[in-house]
């Protein structure tokens, strides 16, 4: 346990010392919300709705992109080499990938909470009458995303491949799920495709909490994301091989 905590602490330090990752999860996310909210809402009465929409959807987009934070933490060239020493040490294999998952989760979750703490009062955005449920629901989604990033690294043995594949997949799913533009009013095939995107389910769950104060989708999403997270960690255990690191 002591060794795991040492590795975890080192991973956290490395993540918070990475200006690109910190900037991407804070400044870039905030800027994207400002731009999208301003372009679609303007300065009139619609602006509040627009910011409400984009804070939620782009936050989900940021949470899912946590997969890239994890892959960076696990296999980025400058990190991968010193990580090799952890493989050589008597620390065991589980702490190697699990500490990357946990540290990426803590990193992303902390920065996204910070983002909400700044943006909600600034843009007059609400998280519902029970914001704790909103914040609670973020946790398994964040965890699921970072575990997915690590599993892809274990399978493809490369940060570049993982980032390319996940970036494309997440962007497409988010686009179809209405992250950038809502397709709720669209009919026919587009409406069907939108409904099939898992991002749409996440959007619906978070909007239900923040706008309707409804918990109807809270438990299904919480349990679903938690079960998927466990399966992804088990997948990491199955696919992680030390030779991929050497």
């Amino acid at each position, binding site marked *: 346990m002591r060794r795991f905590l040492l590795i975890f602490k*080192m991973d956290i*330090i490395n993540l918070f010392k990475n200006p690109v990752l910190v900037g991407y999860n804070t400044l870039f996310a905030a800027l994207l919300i400002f731009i999208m909210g301003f372009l679609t809402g303007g300065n009139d009465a619609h602006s509040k709705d627009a910011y409400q929409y984009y804070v939620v959807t782009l936050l989900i987009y940021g949470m899912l992109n946590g997969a890239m934070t994890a892959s960076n933490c696990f296999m980025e060239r*400058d990190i991968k080499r*010193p990580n090799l*020493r952890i493989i050589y040490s*008597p620390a065991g294999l589980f702490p190697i990938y699990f500490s990357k998952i946990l540290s990426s989760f803590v990193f992303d979750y902390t920065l996204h909470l910070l983002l909400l703490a700044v943006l909600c009062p600034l843009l007059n955005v609400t998280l519902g009458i029970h914001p704790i449920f909103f914040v609670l629901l973020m946790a398994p989604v964040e965890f699921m995303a970072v575990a997915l990033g690590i599993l892809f690294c274990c399978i493809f043995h490369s940060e570049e491949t993982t980032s390319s594949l996940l970036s494309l997949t997440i962007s497409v799913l988010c686009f179809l799920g209405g992250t950038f533009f809502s397709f709720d009013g669209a009919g026919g095939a587009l409406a069907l495709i939108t409904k099939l995107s898992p991002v749409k389910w996440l959007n619906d769950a978070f909007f239900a909490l923040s706008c309707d104060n409804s918990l109807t989708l809270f438990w299904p999403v919480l349990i679903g994301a938690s079960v998927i997270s466990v399966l992804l960690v088990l997948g990491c255990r199955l696919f992680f091989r030390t030779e991929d690191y050497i």
Partner: protein
Amino acid sequence: MEHLMSVSHLTKSFKGNKVLNEISFNVHRGEALCILGPNGAGKTTTINILTAALGSDGGDIQFQGKPIGSQLRTYKQALGIVPQDVALYEELSAERNLSFFASLYGLHGNELKQAVDKALVFAGLDDRRHDKVKTFSGGMKRRLNIACAIAHDPELVIMDEPTVGIDPQSRNYILESIKKLRDHGMTVIYTTHYMEEVEVISSRIIIMDHGAIIAEGTKESLKEEIQNEKRYIIEVEENCGISHDDFFSVEGVKAAKIDGSIIEITSLKGIENLDRMIALLSNRGEKIRNITSENASLEMVFLKLTNRKLRD
């Protein structure tokens, strides 16, 4: 001599290509065992299997009389590994790197502090302990790379070409440090393709080529195999068509190799035949630019065994 490690019939293939072919050797306690071979000989694969980072397809490795698989944590605790690439956190200081890696081996508190101080002195980086690694020169990083492997005072240090790409001054520093480790009784396995490093630090040598061990022994015993031989390297201005077979007409010549304008001849020692070689070349119209000769060396041993230069 007591065996610290025994490797027997180690085999490894990658995509059907056999890179290690049933290699067996022992590592004696307190020795510096150099594994010598050209690129692609199987040195790094051997090291990766010894460090338990890579599995083998067959064979057995015993450490202190027990298979390493049955005591993996104990085995890893006893190892210090210097990987081929510099494996350090660039954004952290030398002290922080050492402290982190040593603590993975269970050191903490005062014991950790002392180990870090000692390793910094060993690496000659005591005065740069608080500086970030990214501000270090290549040689300093290499020294710290080694210090990180020995800070926890391992029984066996495995070094995979630790001097690649560094300046001669840093290389000398590292070689002297390794000699000190050896003299203090630490067991070292060292892979390299630099013959001069082997000459300086080795207690015993294993020569590998094409995934097999082709010779094993001390410097002296290996050189003994060719002590009756002498090598001439003759550089001609332009090769006018002389073939290596032509040299066998000269008494004492055992082998000849022609590579462009360079002719390498292995001859029996004690037979004065250089003048006849020169005459042969002159008769064929070759203009000699330079002649050098050398007595038994590890380079010659390697050449004899593999028929190729170490860095080919």
